[in-house]
């Protein structure tokens, strides 16, 4: 089918403006798709990272909203006593909105003495000691510090949360979602939010048991407790936080697919217009011996060329957006999966947009096409 390439190129060149507009449309769709994928990818990054550390999260069963889970603080001792549990600590998770830009901040009320036995975390020893000694102190993820223009040593006020905190230290880059969180004393957060004696979940460091078996054992042992539990790996828990509390990863994915669908229709319209205008040409091609399958390949090929050009441009734009300062502060990174999926979407646009017009062109009877001419 290589003999069709020069014909393809000249046909695309024939309607330069339409070709360029179609390429730009596809590029924008790939940009939207890529950027949304990067965003959802970043939001669920915590879930994937948590998956690597094999910790478990014990939360209240039956709450659809993960962060609405409430467990008695005493559950950390109950859980710690179960065979196979290496360590357990209760965490109170809250969300605060900070500053004029309404930045969403995850607050984690922790027990400084127990937390790092469960969650491996690299923090400067002096800073951690300073945090542990001071009930009004906080350790802040480096991304959040940069985003809110805070510095270690600052006194900051989270007015909406009714919190005043002194920043005792920073969580440096280490590939954790905690890099955009605030860690503060659990007792302090409980008092401010009237949640004395409550935690959101208990984080568990596993011993030698497999995490899944241990999770089942914990729920089994607490089945008759006043508050039944649901234990999952921390990866699933983080995923649930993102999916259920933030609530829009699925929405974002849907938006991305709708963008691709709309663009596919747009591309199909552009290719269909091109086919209609070239009815005579297809008649001539068939007359001189081109088979229907060659006509099909010609039109689909043109559509794929447009999609490939739009895909490359869209990915370049996505790269530019992902590497912008704002995206970097939000922790956005793109992965081979994003590039691969965007390429597949470009292919879908190309095939989906080209196939129907191509079939129409391939089925065209030469006599009818020539009649259009005369």
């Amino acid at each position, binding site marked *: 089918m290589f003999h069709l390439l020069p014909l393809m190129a*000249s046909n695309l060149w024939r309607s330069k403006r339409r070709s360029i507009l179609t390429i730009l449309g596809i590029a924008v769709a790939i940009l939207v798709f890529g950027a949304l994928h990067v965003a959802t990818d970043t939001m669920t990054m915590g879930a994937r990272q948590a998956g690597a550390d094999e910790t478990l999260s014990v939360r209240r069963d039956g709450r659809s909203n993960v962060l609405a889970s409430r467990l008695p603080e005493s559950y950390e001792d109950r859980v710690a006593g179960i065979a196979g549990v290496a360590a357990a600590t209760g965490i109170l998770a809250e969300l605060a909105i900070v500053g004029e830009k309404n930045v969403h901040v995850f607050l984690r009320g922790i027990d400084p003495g127990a937390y790092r036995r469960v969650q491996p975390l690299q923090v400067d020893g002096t800073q951690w000691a300073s945090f542990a000694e001071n009930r009004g102190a906080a350790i802040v993820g480096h991304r959040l510090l940069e985003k809110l223009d805070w510095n270690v040593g600052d006194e900051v006020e989270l007015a909406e949360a009714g919190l005043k905190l002194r920043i005792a230290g920073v969580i440096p880059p280490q590939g954790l979602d905690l890099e955009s969180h605030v860690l503060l004393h659990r007792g302090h957060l409980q008092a401010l939010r009237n949640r004395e004696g409550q935690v959101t979940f208990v984080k568990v460091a596993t011993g030698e048991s497999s995490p899944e078996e241990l999770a089942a054992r914990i729920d089994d042992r607490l089945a008759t407790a006043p508050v039944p539990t649901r234990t999952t790996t921390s990866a699933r828990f983080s995923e649930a936080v993102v999916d259920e509390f933030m609530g829009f990863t699925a929405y974002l994915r849907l938006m991305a697919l709708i963008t691709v669908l709309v663009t596919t229709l747009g591309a199909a319209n552009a290719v269909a217009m091109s086919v209609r205008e070239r009815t005579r040409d297809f008649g001539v091609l068939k007359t001189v011996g*081109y088979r229907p399958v*060659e006509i099909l390949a010609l039109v689909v090929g043109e559509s794929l060329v447009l999609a490939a050009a739009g895909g490359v441009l869209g990915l370049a734009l996505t790269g530019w957006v992902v590497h912008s300062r704002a995206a970097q502060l939000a922790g956005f990174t793109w992965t081979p999966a994003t590039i691969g999926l965007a390429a597949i979407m470009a292919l879908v646009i190309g095939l989906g947009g080209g196939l129907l017009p191509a079939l129409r062109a391939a089925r065209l009877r030469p006599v009818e096409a020539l009649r259009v001419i005369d």
Partner: protein
Amino acid sequence: MNQADGSPIVRASGLVKSYGRGDRAIRPLNGLDLQVPEQELLALMGPSGSGKSTLLHVIGGLDQPDEGRCEVKGVDLATLSEGRLCDFRAAHIGFVFQSFNLMPVLSAYENVALPLRRMSLDRKRRREQVEAALELVGLADRSHHKPSQLSGGQEQRVAIARALAIDPQIIIADEPTGDLDENSSWQVVEILRALSREHGKTIIMVTHDRAVASCADRVLYFGHGKLHASEPQTTFAGEGTV
């Protein structure tokens, strides 16, 4: 069938083709018979709508008759699948249209090369064939011009070169001089006559122009959906009306 034995290269018998239904039905081909020997330049004349183009489409394998049989080079076209029919056209039949039908985005050279692109020819051989065809119609020096940069007569000569590129035995020309001025018309007629006499091509040409037709080896006239050796006394459009 071997045409070297003098048998016709085109043999049509009992061709019937109808369009429409009821009172509006017309039958441009109504039991038409035709035999065209090799190397003949045949002119078909008749009023508009009398079935000339329909007959050319049937002979060229672009359309099928409702009834009857059309053999080209001994092959019954009705027995060929769509794909094989494409291959048959690509190998044996060249088409020339009234409105030239050149691809506007391609140069004269590329237009002529169009039927050759789908053949497994090496580039050198293809170039030779394209250049020979352009040379034959006297446009070797216009090979890089786009159709919009050529006169009507030159465009039609490029179209003839495109039909010649595959070196077909049969050329079907549907009013090849219909859109041309007198001078260009004669150039085209001269080329067609030379193709028949010097290059052994069989040419079936539809024309409204008596002067053009007079250059043919034979002229046949449409009337009542059939062909006649002399012009029928009363002919009018839609003559084959059922």
